[in-house]
């Protein structure tokens, strides 16, 4: 009587760990699956031009999703990133076109590098506002960032009265030319935006794994009270994740404006939802404490390739939305199943170890 379940347990243990490995790699498997599927189903899918185009689309979402990952790992959410994208694009556009009027007849024009820095600072500043609302005034992250979503979008629209800043080529005599480099430039054959993504992603992954701040982010998400008693500066950690999210959104705002050579105040609407989707698809737990930068990037690629591939196949955008939604739901269901299996396999390993 006791022999049979024991044997069954052993065999199910090994099949369990195989299944577990498959489940852990699920986002990666999904990525390969969509790649294989579309390279068969969509002509020209595998052409270099298309791959580069797609990865540029993906990069935009991946930036936002990385910022979102840290925020979600601490147990929060940042709904304002889409609006920050829009507002930062407008800031950059405004500075290229108009500079800053100093009231007494002079106008300062910044060069492109300075404009980029200022724009990034604006993104970080808005993130800091989110952080202050959440840490100092105890507003729930959902509400705080929802409020900032509206405020930032409103400011973006006000900045131009709802119009687009067109033709951001700049003037050579003012030193404001070259804005297009970020969005359209190439280094070693790859778009500049991808290189930036690579740098930021490596930095973020390093931060998560090898720095005290990274460890603290996970501790805060896992158990805020315990983290606080252990001396973790919880408020500072939270400030950081929202500021980093704002920073990522500012990068996206810059890249989009630079690519289009124009700033439109409605840019970035609903980007926050794609970012959340990519993070969740990549294994970030909405209840905090779990998530990886690598997973999120892969998640962003799955979503991006899925939507671009479907477009190439001529699937209607209505169906695209249905499919995207289903993929997200399936991802979370598999995630839950994996956790259950994981705890069972851990138990079995402990039993084997004695």
């Amino acid at each position, binding site marked *: 009587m006791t022999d049979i379940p024991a044997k069954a347990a052993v065999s199910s243990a090994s099949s369990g760990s195989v299944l577990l490995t498959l489940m852990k790699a699920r986002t990666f498997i999904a990525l390969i699956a969509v790649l294989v599927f579309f390279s068969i189903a969509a002509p020209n899918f595998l052409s270099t031009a298309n791959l580069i185009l797609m990865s540029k689309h993906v990069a935009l979402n991946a930036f936002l999703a990385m910022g979102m990952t840290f925020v979600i790992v601490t147990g929060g959410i940042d709904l304002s990133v889409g609006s920050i994208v829009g507002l930062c694009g407008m800031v950059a556009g405004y500075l290229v076109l108009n500079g800053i009027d100093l009231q007494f007849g002079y106008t300062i024009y910044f060069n492109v590098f300075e404009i980029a820095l200022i724009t990034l600072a604006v993104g970080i500043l808005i993130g800091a506002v989110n952080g202050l609302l959440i840490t100092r005034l105890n507003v729930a992250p959902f509400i705080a960032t929802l409020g900032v979503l509206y405020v930032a979008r409103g400011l973006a629209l006000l900045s131009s009265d709802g119009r687009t800043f067109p033709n951001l080529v700049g003037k050579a005599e003012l030193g404001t030319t070259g804005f297009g480099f970020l969005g359209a430039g190439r280094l070693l054959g790859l778009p500049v935006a991808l290189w930036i993504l690579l740098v930021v992603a490596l930095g973020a992954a390093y931060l998560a794994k090898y720095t005290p701040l990274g460890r603290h982010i996970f501790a805060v998400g896992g158990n805020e*009270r315990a*983290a606080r008693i252990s001396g973790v500066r919880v408020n500072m950690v939270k400030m950081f994740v929202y500021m980093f999210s704002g920073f990522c959104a500012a990068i996206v705002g810059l890249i989009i404006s630079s690519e289009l050579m124009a700033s439109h105040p409605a840019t970035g609407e609903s980007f926050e939802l794609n970012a959340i989707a990519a993070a969740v698809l990549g294994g970030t737990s909405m209840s905090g404490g779990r998530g990886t930068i690598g997973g999120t990037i892969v998640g962003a690629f799955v979503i991006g390739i899925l939507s671009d591939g479907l477009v190439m196949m001529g699937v209607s955008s209505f169906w695209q939305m249905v499919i995207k939604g289903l993929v997200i739901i399936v991802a979370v269901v598999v995630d839950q199943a994996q956790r259950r299996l994981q705890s069972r396999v851990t138990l079995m390993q402990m039993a084997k170890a004695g």
Partner: protein
Amino acid sequence: MGATGHDVILKLEDVSKVYSGTVAVKRANFEVRKGAVNVLVGENGAGKSTLMKIIAGVEQPTAGRILLEGEEVSFASSGDAVNRGIGMVFQELNLFGNMSVAENIFATREITNRFRKIDRKAQERRAAEFLERLQAGIRPDMLVEDLRIGQQQLVEIAKAVSLDARILIMDEPTSALSAAEVEILFKVIADLKARGVAIVYISHRLEELIRIGDYITVLRDGRITGQEEMKNVDTQWIVRQMIGSDAKDFAKADGHVPGEEIFRAEAICLPRATGGLAVDHVSLSLRAGEILGIYGLMGAGRSELFDCIMGRHGQATGEIFIAGRHVRERDTTRRIRRGLALIPEDRQREGLVSILSVASNLTLASLSRFVRLFHIRGAAERQAVVQMVRELAIKVADPMQEVSSLSGGNQQKVVIGKALLTGPKVLLMDEPSRGIDVGAKADVFRTMRKLSRDGLGILFATSDLDEVMALSDRIAVMSNGKLTGMFDRAEATEAAIVAASALGHGPVAHTENKAHD
């Protein structure tokens, strides 16, 4: 099992429970007798809770039979067991924090009127009756999350009592109760016994078991190793059955002499949200290498005092000094850096980040030690972790394992290790032995002794009289937020300590209070 007047109401025959690979209970034969307290003891992980969950229908046995009054039964769910008259007080609190006490007591058995609407008044009236018997001072309309853990435990007990069960299982009902509350609980148990209720009682506190138990069953590694009438056994016997050999409960003092003053608190005050002071002008001083036990009942303000010292309350007043130097820093992070460390009472909620690994938990408070610039040096961190695991005898196969997979005692050691890695001068331990087994307790006490020998000052709070008497060099007593007694170990008597622990509520103190307002 000898001639007794108690009938067997429930019998387990050769019951086993296998969890995907681990055998939690092996061929257990267990009898529960009517009108008696049936005690079940064993170290953590011995299978007590599993066995009780089988009786309460929460888990189904893998093999074996359950006989209720001679008739074979099988419970598909805890609801089934409740219908057959089996109630259980769970070890982990199963309460809804966002609901009132009355709503919790009548959860799933709501009292409704003709229109299926919940009759809140009737529920609160009935709930008040049960709470009255526990004399807990809990109003039925209070939210559970506003109660302290000890009070929550009383609500859990009231809930189980309200079931009118024939068999009532209590899994460590006293782990968060003060001595006075334990007395009240024992009265309730005696009352239930007199009405013929069979009580199954699980606890780590041996003296408690010997006092109220009628029959005792000892479990070790899922197997029943001893079953006796309580009048035939003593502590030594129980401990022998539990861990296979005689064990000394408390590490002995080694006679080292405490050094200079290392910590002083002056006039610590913390206002209570409901008015009055939760910590009322507490001043005390601690010497290096000294263990100062703070005894007090639930709500005496011990935990709150520790929180104030750690800088967890912005509104707290008073000054603290470490090694004679004034500590001006008011936040936890910098106070830890100055040499204070807290081992909190509630391991799960405040001590551990349960989804992180053992290693990450251990180094969480001391990461800056392993950092060069901003990079965590993996090798240095691993080395510290391995050393701490060995020093504290933490039983873990791989430090990268999630901390939640450890037993309670080992989790507590992780919390202690985390505090020690910060290199503290003063260690604050809030109920360091709560909810851990005898073996782990002995380890914890040994560690406290060793640390004090190394020159740490240790402040530890407990509501266990034996513990405070056995471990402390000096004993402070708190009551109602005030320091009401301070004894040297040599001159302390249990009677004096207990008397002091009630002083804060006395009439004299009360008028003093008024004068302050």
